[in-house]
Structures are given as C-alpha cells and as structure tokens.
C-alpha cells in the first residue's frame, strides 16, 4: 500500500458573503496516495477548486482535518502556508499565470532559484517538450506552449504534489492533449502525486483514480482498471 500523502476528514469550507452562506465543502473525506494521478470531476460549484486550494495551501478549511504527511494544514499560518507551497507544491492553472516580463526559461528559473533540489530550467522545459522555445516571452508563445511552460515551472523544483486546476480549460483538444501528455510524463517519470481538476469527463480515463464531486462532497470514487494515454482520449 502506497503512503498517504494527503488525508482529509470531515473537511468543510463555508464562504460568507453578507447574509449569504455558501457551503463549498461539506464534510468531505479523501486520501491521496504517493505517486498516483487522480482526476477530480464535477460541475461548477461542486467544490473541486475549493478542495484543491485547501490542499495546495492557498486557502484554509473552516472545519475538519487536512494533513499533508504529518503537517496539519488547518493550523498553519500565512507564513507556514507560503513555506508549504514553496517546498512541496506545484500549481498549474487554467490561465497559465506566467510572468509576462520573464522568458519561458526565466519563468522556470523563478522557482528553481528558491528551491532546494531543483532540476535545471532547461531540463524541466525539455520534459514538456519546449527546449526550443526557452528564450521566448509568454506573449510570443501559443496558449498550449504557455501552459506547458507553467507545467515545467510547477515541476522544476521536484514538488511532492502537482495540483492542476482546469489545465486544458482554455485550450483546444489537440493542444490540450499535449498538455496532458506533459502532466502524465511528469507523474510517470518523477513519481509526483498529481491531482487534476476538470469538468471534462473524458479526461478521467488517463488517471489511476477519479472522484466525482457534487454539493461539496465526493459522491463516487472509481479506480481505472485500464488507463488510456492522453492521445487516446477524445473530446
């Protein structure tokens, strides 16, 4: 049995906006295991992103337990959460979030400069197939290329977990597949525990497991007996 990397029990997140109270997570339970690739599926507002933000140390739960190995994420302060993100987490977002004034290589170097055992930026770009575009600025890259730079940036520090929030959401299917190939390659070659949020159900087939969300809970968890390669997925 693989090591449990993330453990969530009774995880609850309540947003209050004036008199309105929204339960984004409602007593959610989940374990993520070392080296696995999990796809989190569900409609908008079902709580996927909220979970990912809490796991990644961008947000704090209102109630319940959330541990990363032996670190209690619920108890960490702002500084502690920053340190947690810095050491253990790689993020990939729908809108890439690259720094426009830095080239592809420099966007990656931004992270490697503050990491303990990073790979070289060129190595990370090579992993996502972008060595040739290393000296281009984001404005000179296509959407898919930008997203692959974002992946290279996320994995260059050899994070323990890679959290991807709709990584293909802004891309056409052809480009999306290339991005997914980069993510699966990282998961396979570096053994990085990976969670991908999507509302594109077809993607679930590339994962070891997938979880379905509804109303702030996981309503179904399925292990794939047979995984598909990204190129075999179509949407």
């Amino acid at each position, binding site marked *: 049995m693989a090591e449990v990397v993330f453990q969530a029990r009774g995880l609850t997140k309540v947003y209050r906006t004036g008199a309105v109270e929204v339960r984004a997570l409602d007593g959610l339970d989940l374990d993520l295991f070392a080296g696995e690739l999990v796809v989190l599926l569900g409609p908008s507002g079902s709580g996927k*992103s909220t979970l990912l*933000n809490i796991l*990644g140390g*961008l*947000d704090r739960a209102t109630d319940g337990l959330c541990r990363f190995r032996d670190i209690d994420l619920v108890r960490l302060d*702002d*500084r502690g959460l*920053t*340190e947690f*993100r*810095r*050491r253990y*987490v790689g*993020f990939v*977002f*729908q*809108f890439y*979030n*690259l*720094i*426009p*004034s*830095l080239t592809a290589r*420099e*966007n990656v*170097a*931004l*992270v490697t*400069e*503050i990491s303990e055992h990073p790979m070289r930026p060129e190595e990370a770009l090579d992993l996502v197939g972008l060595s040739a575009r290393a000296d281009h*600025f*984001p*404005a*000179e890259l296509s959407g898919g290329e930008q997203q692959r730079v974002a992946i290279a*940036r996320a994995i260059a520090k050899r994070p323990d977990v890679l959290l991807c*929030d709709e990584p293909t959401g*802004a891309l056409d299917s052809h480009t999306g597949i290339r991005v997914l190939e980069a993510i699966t390659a990282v998961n396979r070659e570096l053994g990085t525990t990976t969670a991908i949020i999507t509302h594109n159900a077809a993607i679930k087939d590339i994962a070891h497991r997938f979880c379905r969300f509804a109303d702030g809970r996981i309503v179904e968890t399925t292990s794939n007996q047979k995984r598909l390669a990204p190129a075999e997925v179509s949407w």
Partner: protein
Amino acid sequence: MLSLHGLRALDRKLVRDLVRIWPQALAIALVLASGVATLILAIGAYRSLEETRRLYYAEYGFADVFASATRAPAALESRIAELPGVAIAEARITRHAILDLEGVTEPVTGLLQSLPDRARPLLNRPHIRLGRLPEAGAISEVAVNVAFADAHGLRIGDGFDAILNGKKRRLTIVGAVLSPEHIYAIGPGDLMPDYRRFAILWMSRTTLESVFDLDGAFDAVSLKLEPGAREAEVIARVDQLLSRYGGTGAYGRADQISHAFLDAELKQLAALARIIPPVFLLVSAFLLNMTLLRLIALEREQIGLIKALGYANAAIAAHYLKLVGVITVVGIAIGFALGTLFGQSLTRLYGKFFQFPFLVFEHDGDLYVVAATLTLAAAVAGALRAISTALALPPAVAMSPPAPQRYAHLPGEASALAAHLSQMTVMSLRNMVRFPMRSAMTGLGLSLSVGLLIVSLFAFDAVEAMIDATFFGSQRQDATLNFRDEQPVRITTDVSHLPGVLRVEPFRHVAARIRNGQISRRLTLTGRPDDTLLTRQLDLALAPVAVPETGILINRRLAEVLGVERGSLVELDILDGRRGTRMVRISDIIESYIGLVALMRMDQLNRLLEEGPVVSGVHIAYDRDREAALFRAIKATPRIASIEQQRHALSRFRATLAENIDMMTSIYIGLAVVVAFGVVYNSTRIQLSERARDLASLRVLGFHRREVSRVLFTELTLLALIAQPLGWIIGHWLAWLTIQSFSSDLYTTPFVINTATYAKASLVTIAATVASALTVHQRIAALDLVAVLKTRE
C-alpha cells in the same frame, strides 16, 4: 451611505469610482492644491503688500524725490517748488544723533526729522499711533517711531537724553508714530532693522533750527512730482539748485532705502509665484495622466460595453472628464483655503517686519479665477491623452481582453553581470523599460520633489556664506563710528585713546554717482587707507586684496549693473564737496554681497575731492570688558553722530532672516513631501493594480510577502536612486533662478548650496517614498490569491 438616487447611471459609476480610488484621487488633489496654494500665497501676499504700500503712500503723502544739503537758505524751498514737474516741495531738517537711555549701556543712534510748525506736514506725514506730534517750538517734545518705543517699553511721558549738536538734552515722548518713509527702518550701515539701537525722532522745526544753528535754513527737502513729470530732469534741476549749499544729490524712490527694501521683497514674492507653482502643475498633470490611463485600462471592457449599448464617445469623454473635474475641484478648493491661510500669515509676517499702520488683505477674485483656470487646464491636459485612448477603443476590441503585454530583452542582458541578477530583479528592470514614460515620469516627479527641497533649504547655505564673507571676511570691526561732519584725520588718535579701544581705522564716505554710458547708480564712495585689518576687500575668490594705489574697486553687482569689467573707465560724479565729473579706471572687481560698493585709497579720494586728510568715521576694535566705559565715552563725544555695532548687526541679521526663511521653508518642505508622497503612492498603486496577477502568482509559487514586495520596490528604489542626481540638477537650476530674482542693488545672495543640503533633500524625499511604499506594502498582504488566479488576463 451616499445617496445616488436621481443620478444618471454613468454618474453613479463616477461616484463609485471616486469612492474606490479615493486615496489616489486625494493624493493628486493635494499636489494640485499645493500648486494653487503657492500661487495664491505668493501673488496674494504680493498684492496685499503692494496695495497696503500704495494706500499708505497715498494717504500719508510719501514723497517722490528726496534731497539733502549742508545748509540751504529757506527761500530756496519755494524755488524748488516752482521747478517744472514739482507739485509740492517741503523743506526740513534731518540729523543723526546719539541717544542715551536709562539702563541701556550701548549708545542708540537716532535720526531726527523736523515737523513743520505751521501745520501738519504736506509730505511723509507720520501716522499717530499713540499721543500726538510735538508742538511748535516745544523744545523738549519728541515723537518716536512705534517700534523703538516698543523695543524699549517706552510710553508717552517717558524721557531720555539726546546729544544734540554736542549738548545733552532731555526729551519727553509725546507720541508714538509710523511713517511711510520708514516702513523698513534701518540705521546707517545696518542690514536689518534693529529697533533697540536705531530710533527715528520727530521734533518741531523751530526747535531743531535753533539746536543745529539752522535758523532760516534747511538741510533736506522732499518733493511730490506732478503726474507725468520726468524724475531724472527734476533731480538734475534740484541738484543744480542745491549744489552751492552742499547738496549730496537728489534721488527718487528707487534709492530711498525703505522703499527699495520693500521693492526687493515684492520682487522676490513675484519670482516665487513664477518658479514654484509650475512645478506642482506639471506633477499633477502627470499624476492625472498616469492614474486615468490605468483606470481606463481596467475599465476597458466596461467602456466597450457602454459603447455597445449606444453611448456616444462624447458621453464617455464627459464621464472621465467629470472624474478629473471632481479631483481638480477638490484640489483647487483645498489650494484656495491653504493659499489664503498661508498668504495671510505671510502678509502678517511682513506686517511685523515692515512697519505699516494697517494691512490690506487682497483677495481679488481674479487671482482665484486665474489659479483655478491654470490648474484645470493642467489637469485636463494631463487627462486628454488617457481619455483619447478610451475613445479610440472600438467596442468589439474593447470587450475582448487586451493582448498580453510584450516585453523585450534588456540591452546588455547577455553580460556576465546580468547572469547574476535574480529573476525578480529582471522582472523589475524589464518592467521599467517596458513602461519608459511612466518610469520617466515617476523618476521626474521624485526629482522635482528633491529640487523643491533644495530650493527651500539652500537659502540657509546662501545666507551663511553671505554672513561668512561679510562679517568674518570683510567687515571685522566691532563697531563703526560715524562723525557729524568730516573730521581731520588726527581724530583717529583721539578715538584710539577712548577706553578699551584696540585698533582704529579711518574711512572717508562721499555721495557719488557712477556712470557707464546711459547706466548710472547713486552710491557711497568709500576711501580707505591701504593698511586696514578690520575691514578688508575680498576678491571674487573671497581672498583679501589691497586697495590699489590708483583707480577704484567695485563689487561684482555694480560691475554687472554697469556692464563694466576690470580696466574699464567709468565716470564718477561727486555729489558733495567739490562737485564735478571725473573719469576713473576700475582696477579690479571685488566680491561684496551688500549694496553697491565702490572704494579707493583714502588719500587718493581726498586728492580727488581736493581736500586735505579728512575722515567721515572710523572702524574700531575694542576690548569687550571695557565696553561700558567706552560707550559712556562715546555718548559724551559730541562729534560722533551714530554708531553701528557689528555684533548686533549680525545677530539681528540672523534672527530676521531665520524668521522669514523658516516660515517659507516649512511651507515648502511640506509641499515637497506632498509631491514625493503623491507621486510614489500613485505610481506604486497603479503598479500594484497592473501587476496584482504577477504578484499573486509569485505568492502561489511560494514567495513570501516580503519577497513579492521586493519586485515592486526594486523598481521604485531604482527610480528613486536615478531621480536623486536629476533632482540635484533641477534643484541647482531652480536655486539659481531664485538667486537671480533675489538679487537687487541692496544685496545679492551668493549662489552656494552645501553638500549637506543635497543630502537632506534626498533624505526627505526618500523618507516620503518609503512611507508611501509602506502603505502600499500593506495591500500586498490583502491580495486575493485565489480570485486573481481565476481570472483571465
């Protein structure tokens, strides 16, 4: 809660926009207010002072031309009055005398002026503050100037002794008065008013006639000219009439000391209004431009939508112009209030410094209209470019997100040095280069703030340099004694025997007019022995030089005014003694910051005047321990008409300037800080807004708040550093402009800025920058990481 009921939709947006960006709007309004305030302050004080002077002169009959002589027959008065162009001529007696007040060791110099016996004076009428004027023939009655009475706590009925024509007389004060002739009352040779040691006394004409043996004669005359009369012609005719009676040359208001000082002050205020407000208007225009550009960039999609809904360009332009209008109106209102307040304080300060019977505060609407119009014009000019970008946006383009910002490699990036820069530093540098206009304007804004501070602080340096050259380099005597008339040179031996006197150096003074072609100036020509130690002449490098055997030395200001240089020939009209014109050669130009200086060897001057060895006064050094005995002896020496004490002159000079400069400096420092804070705050807030997404990304990647702030502040720090040398240059230049406007024939200010002043200006600006940056730093903590990452660019 603000009620927006009844407002049109776009106006509601306007109100909410303003509420959202209020700190930035306020920062801009304050910079605008500073411009308005300095304009109103300077012009308001200028007009108040000028109007006060005009009314005072008109109501109290301030004369147009003044002349003195040794002894002119009374009948000459009517002949002068009949000269063409003369409306009124009034003769009088004016003399200097030493006064002896109980409890005051040092001798006080008094200027005696006669009042006509028949009626009230026609010209230069005193304003009676307390009591009355002396009665005709009342030999012991005197009216004194209010400031002197105040300085000694003298009241009506109090008395003091005066040495009049060698005899001690007891005088009783019957009135305390002010005079349009003595708005700025300084003793002979003084630089600043010293009301403890200089008094103006008014006595009845018949009394002074009998005291000074001037029965049926006068020694001074004041003239009122007819409208359109030519002053120079009248002066020439008066000089002609008085030449036989020891006339020392008539002069107009421009050479009347009180008027000239007031004029110099007015000139400085006018210069202030020209130099400072444009700086503020420039900075405000840039701030508005920068802020509005950002606002419009943020509202790009809204503008597209509003256009798509069918609003015309005019409506959108009007919307943003209203925003600018509101900020500007707030700025103008604050500026009006501050300007009026500061202006009144400054006018009051002048009221203390200058002796007026009343102060007129000028608040003419036109000044406010001009200030408001100029400010509004600067604001709109700043906003126009930003608004035109909003108008140029086609709705379809506006509603889609803008293309990502294109950045470029920096020149020299491939160098080995660049390889050591962190990615955070590279981000800052590229951003600076990507927005060169904004970087330049932010830098320039900070530079202007440094420049303003230098201009406000350098006055202290200049004055200290002036004091150093004047009191420690050139005029090192303890006191100067002026004699009643020319005395034979052996009097120096008598003076050297007075108690405590260590050294005596005689001098000769003679009224003269110096001329080069059409340009001429009236001045006191000084003769000095060649071996003086107490008083020295300084060359342009401030090193002592000897008085040459032939020719004259003139100071730099006089050389500039006459347009002459070393070796030039000038005409010299001697105005008393043996009159006539001589050509003399300028043997060298010397540095002297006080007045117009022309000096030559005393023996040569006496030869020029065809007189024997006579002196007008002596400079002395004395033993301070024996001061009381010395002063007693001076008071008992009838030939001494007045005394100047260098120590008091210096302390009065410092005190008076400190009071004046302190107020202006405090106001300027406050305003410069407003500029620095406003520029940095706006610039950083805009950057924060533009780069919120980058900064949030960095936070997500695991950078701490402090590290993220560094990205913003590296750029700001670099700009602030680059801004310093530029600010020093701007400050240097503004200071030079100020010096030019501050120079007059009465005094010139040396152009000196100490290194410490540059450093102080930089420190204040950097402190304001840091304070402003810290307020923005707080906002980085509040960045909503999740929300920022969820939005598209």
